[in-house]
């Protein structure tokens, strides 16, 4: 019995990580009468469980290879040996568990942080349930093996995110930002839906793996590809479709901004999945790759230059998020560009992808940290305006150090994790085209300058008399920050181990088209 239950859990792992947060989200409001704390504890608990499950799942993926799961089948892990799968299928390979792990960790930490940060607001149960819903959406997107499901989870994610962005409903800007986000999301959702329709119309298939196997590369396929790429580029907030990012990140509560980072990254994942698994063999993928590289470059550059003049600390960080997304696009884009040239792929393509993928988790960590630090400053000073801060370094030294860690990491200075991934990107990308590396390096330096400015405005300079009584933030809020900082340094000091454990399998999975398809077909 004991063993059986264990087996049961393991067998149903992929479904559980989606189902638990989904269920928890619906239960959360009911707990309201046990007090605010009950809701937050409930959320933290559930997310922790999911975290553990994702780790176990990831372990299994590494050990046993791709995990698939057909919802509702008697033995869900087994698929019909022949013919087409009719059921909804979840398929977990290394890259999806990588994404799942990254996302859920950040959301969990954001949730812990929220326990204190959101205490003073009334309808926190709504907040937590939306957060859980968001987690469910992200998990779904990461683990789904089916185009239509991806659309569904994307919608779940969008709606919950919009709700969270609009959380400060008393502020007009928040509503406006949420509205903007919703419009963008709907447009991209429509595009995704249309693309799915195009594909379904031709092949009668929704399953990604099956579709990948059946491809004939028609004109319609190419249109579908274009639609999907634009939709996900928009959702991940890359230039030139980045206009929603600053508003959304800026107006959302700080832990949500941190979570939105991973929410955007999951769209990035969807983009990669589609490009590699679905369209990897398409000859025209080169063009798409170049587009991705160009979007990446533009994001890097525009993001950082837009960030420079910002006065609002969170908008500023939002622009940096755009800029950092550029690195991931650049790395993976270069990999995609040489996907059909085995020599180049081995020489630098794989390395570039490793850099890009590694950057995803690094970015999630330091951007998460930075947003949470920004939240901490806002929490204590009550303002987002950099010009109104000043001299906090004496009052909040730990926060200041944490900010410094985040800052050095995002600019890619050793020994922090940003350096590790950026280094790989520079070194590989330059073989593709040296100018790319130059741009990447310069953007890092500009990022540094911009963050130094933030540091100056917030922590040094004239101390404002109104902040004389400002204290360090409470311990509960510090815990997630310290964990992130610890991870950042850990990843920075031992990038080799992380690469081997997490990143390389993920990249291999992305490249292993046949493997992914083979599980289903």
């Amino acid at each position, binding site marked *: 019995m004991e063993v059986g239950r264990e087996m049961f859990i393991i067998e149903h792992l992929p479904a559980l990580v989606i189902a638990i947060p989904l269920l928890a989200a619906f239960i959360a409001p009911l707990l309201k009468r046990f007090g605010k704390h009950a809701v937050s504890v409930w959320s933290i608990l559930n997310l922790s469980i999911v975290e553990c499950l994702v780790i176990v799942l990831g372990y299994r993926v590494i050990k046993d290879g791709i995990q698939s799961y057909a919802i509702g089948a008697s033995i869900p892990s087994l698929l019909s040996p022949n013919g087409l799968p009719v059921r909804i299928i979840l398929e977990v390979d290394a890259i999806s568990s990588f994404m799942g792990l990254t996302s859920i960790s950040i959301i969990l930490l954001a949730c812990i942080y929220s326990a204190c940060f959101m205490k003073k607001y009334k309808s926190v149960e709504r907040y937590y349930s939306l957060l859980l819903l968001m987690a469910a959406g992200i998990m779904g997107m990461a683990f789904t093996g089916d185009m239509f499901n991806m659309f569904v989870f994307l919608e779940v994610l969008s709606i919950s995110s919009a709700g969270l962005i609009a959380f400060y409903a008393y502020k007009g800007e928040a509503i406006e930002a949420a509205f903007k986000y919703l419009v963008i999301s709907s447009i991209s959702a429509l595009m995704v839906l249309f693309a799915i329709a195009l594909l379904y119309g031709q092949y009668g298939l929704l399953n990604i793996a099956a579709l990948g196997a059946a491809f004939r590369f028609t004109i319609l396929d190419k249109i579908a590809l274009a639609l999907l790429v634009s939709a996900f580029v928009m959702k991940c907030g890359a230039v030139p479709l980045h206009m929603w990012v600053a508003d959304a990140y800026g107006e959302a509560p700080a832990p949500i901004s941190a979570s939105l980072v991973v929410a955007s990254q999951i769209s990035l994942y969807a983009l990669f999945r589609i490009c590699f698994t679905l369209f990897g063999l398409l000859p025209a993928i080169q063009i798409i790759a170049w587009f991705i590289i160009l979007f990446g470059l533009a994001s890097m550059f525009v993001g950082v230059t837009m960030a420079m003049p910002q006065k609002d600390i969170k908008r500023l960080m939002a622009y940096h998020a755009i800029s950092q997304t550029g690195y991931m696009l650049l790395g993976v884009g270069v990999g995609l560009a040489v996907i059909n040239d085995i020599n180049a792929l081995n020489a630098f393509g794989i390395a570039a992808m490793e850099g890009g993928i590694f950057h995803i988790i690094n970015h999630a960590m330091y951007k998460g940290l930075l947003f949470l630090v920004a939240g901490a400053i806002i929490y204590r000073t009550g303002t987002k305006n950099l010009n109104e801060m000043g001299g906090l*370094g004496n009052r909040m030294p730990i926060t200041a150090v944490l900010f410094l860690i985040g800052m050095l990491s995002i600019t890619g200075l050793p020994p922090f994790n940003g350096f590790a991934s950026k280094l790989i990107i520079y070194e590989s990308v330059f073989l593709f085209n*040296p100018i790319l590396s130059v741009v990447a390096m310069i953007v890092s330096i500009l990022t540094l300058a911009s963050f130094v400015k933030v540091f100056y405005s917030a922590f040094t300079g004239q101390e404002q008399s109104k902040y004389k009584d400002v204290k360090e933030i409470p311990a509960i809020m510090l815990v997630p920050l310290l964990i992130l900082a610890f991870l950042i340094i850990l990843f920075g000091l031992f990038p080799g181990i992380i690469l081997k454990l997490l990143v390389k399998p993920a990249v291999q999975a992305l490249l292993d088209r046949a493997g992914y398809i083979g599980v289903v077909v």
Partner: protein
Amino acid sequence: MIEIVYKIGMVPVIAVLGIVLGLLYNGIDRKLAARMQSRVGPPIIQPFIDIKKLLMKESIVPRHAIKWLFNLMPVLALSASLLTLLYIPFCGIGPAFEGYGDLVLVLYLLVLPPLAITLGAFASGSHYATIGAQREMVTMISYELPLAIAIVSVAWLLSMANPSLPVFSLSVISNNPIWNFTTPLSFLGLLIIFIALLLVIPGELGKTPFDVAEAETEIAEGVFAEYSGRNLALFYLANAVRTIAIASLIIAIFLPWNLSTFFNFSYLSLLFDALFFLIKLFVIIFISSVFIRVIVPRLRITQVVSTYWFYTTLIALLGMLLIWIGCCLKG
């Protein structure tokens, strides 16, 4: 095992050597500048005396300063400078640490001291220091562009010649003198890149004409305005070590030859290599720091930016272009 012990043993040796040489070259720099200005100038060991004196002076922390940051940054600046040195082939001995991508690592480590200076200046809470710090940042951004282009071009040249080499490794670069892989055209390109890098050095070191961040007559020593005593000494040491580090970096990339590869001095070769290295160091520092410093006035910050972002970048790009054409013609 023995190698690890040897390497760890090298760390303090190189650190001390770096500091001593840094101060010595600083002394030579001052002496030469003075002699060019028809003065006797301070004795060559003057920087040592200065440091000794600073170390026994009181270190004042201004009232408005963020104390921990203010005191931490000089330490950071010095340790980053020393760390940089450990990654660079130095004095005929290979780098104490080396590894994958250390060229980029070194470039980043070189960013740290100016960053420390900036943060320290911000932390001191004085107006002059703040303006100086902003200028320091702007200067850094400016020279970083041509620097990046130059370094990437070098690596590119090498990787086009032998694609299998891990070109972002300093020991690889210095073991494969890049000039060996050039065609006439790419030789010219490389030369141009070399010149661009020499122009970057005074900016990196905050020497006239790019010393906008410390401009004495404008902003009263700017970034260092509030520093005194031990903290100031640490910044001075950091700067001295950094001078050596940057010059050694240039040598490792462009002038990596050792005498022992041409002549055989048997066991004396280490000594001769070290001497030869010191001469190369002197030449690089003399051209890029001493000489430029005495023949031009300080620029405005806007002119610093345009010098680097426009002129020097253009030079570097031209070099890159020539290298590219040169390699294409060959390959």
